[in-house]
């Protein structure tokens, strides 16, 4: 990409967009799958370039330390998911769950969704962020419903309606922010440019900012999957194709969270506004505890991990709500780790569901005996997501819990309670899934284990050793977040 006429931030957007167009036209799923992988790889390259080459903030696009984290994560997981998707989708085609036409649609939508998410991440205009999030949502809605079964359509519909309401609320919040900025910055697009807003946030009307934040919290919070706004999330994860579940959990939630964080920074920059922290802490805890309890009665393996995503989003939002250098650092780390781990889990689960021909957990047992690689990957993934060392999630949970307990013991106790409850549920399930008397089909696997191993290895290394460069970067971001 070096020396290309396109600047990296534009490349991050253009590659998926062009690829989407291309994929929409091209028949043949093998080729499409490859193009999909290549396009994702190119986006990743472009994103990596952003690390070294930081463009000036424009009125529409800008890149700073914060969103580079998200973009990089986004493109990375997008890339690995596309690799996974290539093998996954092939199998779906074989067993006839999808037709070729739908596959073409699928690949195009995949890139379009990546475009939407990348756009939301690099956008400098709060209106543009909103549009991009909506785009990403709509594309995922279509993908969730792609199997066209009763359940899939229902899930997509639920996602669509709840998402629409959320989006409407977010828009109202965005308008209110504009309204707050308007007397200070003046009319026009400038009053929606984030870099300008943050600079003068202290002069805004605090009450209006508060109000805006309530709407934005609920609006984007719906996308993040915070309870009690979460209802779309489990079904969407469970009924859609597994690569989409991975991307939803690993990426889309992050994108919405990113939007939320931007506005949180805006509020934090104003001394007179309400502290956004307590609200986020509250919602985070509610999500965590609620999702932890919900994990127990799940029968569908993907739905269970979807609830686990809610749980972790709760922890992340909690961490960002607690703020402080440790809290933000932990939140950021946890988000990264969660994305990597959860997508790895979904990769594994996808293959498991394909091998076993079912997503019902009662019909999947004794995996470590019948399919050692998948079984142990699942165990490792669950151990990682449950916050067991030496995986990275442990480090972030360690930081969140220990830093909170000294400040707010009660909150930390609730947090620990929720974590423990969730842990119990996850381990209960993984015990029966991975151990015990094998049940169900024992056919061979054609799994692409590379993405799984890559993610788990990253998470493992992160639990033991974080490179100083990364730490400095994250710490910088944590400072940015206040």
């Amino acid at each position, binding site marked *: 990409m070096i020396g290309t006429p396109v600047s990296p931030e534009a490349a991050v957007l253009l590659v998926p967009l062009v690829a989407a167009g291309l994929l929409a036209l091209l028949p043949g799923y093998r080729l499409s799958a490859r193009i999909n992988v290549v396009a994702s790889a190119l986006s990743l390259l472009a994103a990596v370039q952003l690390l070294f080459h930081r463009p000036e903030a424009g009125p529409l696009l800008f890149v700073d330390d914060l969103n580079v984290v998200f973009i990089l994560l986004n493109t990375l997981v997008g890339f690995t998911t596309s690799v996974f998707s290539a093998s996954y989708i092939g199998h779906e085609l074989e067993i006839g769950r999808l037709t070729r036409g739908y596959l073409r649609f699928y690949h195009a939508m995949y890139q379009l969704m990546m475009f939407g998410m990348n756009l939301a991440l690099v956008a400098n205009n709060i209106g543009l962020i909103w*549009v991009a999030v909506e785009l990403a949502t709509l594309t995922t809605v279509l993908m969730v419903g792609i199997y066209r079964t009763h359940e899939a359509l229902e899930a997509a519909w639920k996602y*669509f*309606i709840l998402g629409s309401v959320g989006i409407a609320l977010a*828009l109202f919040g965005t308008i209110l922010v504009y309204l707050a900025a308007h007397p200070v910055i003046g009319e026009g*697009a400038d009053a929606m440019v984030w870099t300008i807003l943050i600079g003068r946030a202290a002069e805004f009307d605090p*009450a209006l900012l508060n109000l805006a934040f309530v709407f934005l919290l609920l609006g984007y919070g719906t996308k993040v999957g915070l309870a009690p706004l979460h209802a779309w999330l489990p079904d969407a994860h469970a009924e859609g194709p597994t690569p989409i579940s991975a991307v939803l959990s690993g990426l889309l939630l992050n994108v919405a969270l990113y939007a939320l964080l931007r506005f949180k920074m805006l509020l934090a920059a104003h001394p007179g506004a309400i502290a956004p922290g307590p609200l986020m802490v509250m919602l985070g805890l509610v999500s965590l505890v609620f999702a932890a309890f919900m994990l127990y009665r799940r029968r569908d393996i993907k739905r269970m991990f979807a609830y686990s995503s809610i749980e972790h989003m709760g922890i992340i939002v909690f961490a960002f709500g607690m703020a402080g250098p440790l809290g933000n650092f932990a939140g950021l780390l946890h988000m990264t780790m969660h994305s990597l781990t959860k997508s790895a889990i979904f990769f594994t689960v996808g293959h498991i569901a394909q091998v076993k021909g079912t997503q019902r957990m009662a019909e999947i047992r004794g995996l470590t005996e019948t399919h050692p690689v998948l079984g142990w990957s699942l165990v490792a993934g669950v151990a990682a997501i449950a916050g067991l060392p030496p995986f990275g999630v442990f480090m972030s949970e360690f930081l969140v819990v220990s830093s909170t307990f000294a400040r707010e013991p009660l909150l930390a106790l609730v947090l620990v309670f929720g974590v423990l409850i969730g842990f119990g549920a996850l381990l209960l399930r993984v015990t029966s899934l991975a151990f015990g008397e094998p049940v169900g089909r024992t056919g061979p696997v054609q799994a692409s284990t590379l993405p799984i191993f890559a993610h788990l290895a990253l998470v493992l290394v992160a639990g033991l050793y974080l490179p100083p460069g990364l730490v400095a970067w994250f710490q910088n971001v944590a400072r940015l977040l206040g």
Partner: protein
Amino acid sequence: MPKLYFDIAHTLAGSLVLLSFVMLYQRRLGALVNVLALHAVVLALSVAWQAHIQGLPHLYITAAIALVFKAIVVPMALRRMIVMLGIHREIETVTGIGLSMLAGIGLVALSMAVMLPATAGVDPVAREDIALALSVVLIGLLLMVTRRNAVSQVVGFLSLENGIVLAATGAQGMPLVVEISVAFSILIALIVIGIFLFRIRERFDTVDVQALDRFRGERR
């Protein structure tokens, strides 16, 4: 003159709230759709007025979209839907009409209480607009959650969205308003299409897949 501007804007926004209440009050679907159409017309007027007083011609586009799409196309589609899907003409409510009216009044009070102190520094036209818009949004949401059948829920969502457009146009010089209203229209169109496609009769959430198969002309 500014007084007049203000009064007209105020009246239009106020009548939007009033119409929202009328929607809450309606028991019959057909009438509800009619009120929705009227709601959209008033919105279009209001937007146009804003375009006039703010001197922003592109807002006329928004007004036109509101008029054509929301006041004519969507209500027509909804009426057709009622006929085609054989939806009950009675609206099944969760709470009594009286109660939802009371709740609506509470919501308006809430939005005033929240919004007016918050917008002290804002231009009075926008201030009134935004407060009333919030009321419309909240009542729209209330409509969605207290009505059991799909059409009235769509109506609720539409009025919610009208409130947002009102707010967006009220905020002076806000960019992207047109784009946003277009995006929203797409959303609404999708919802309406979705209801058609999935034959969602009574409830918002049971998808009739068999109907869908018939519609697509293929059997699995």
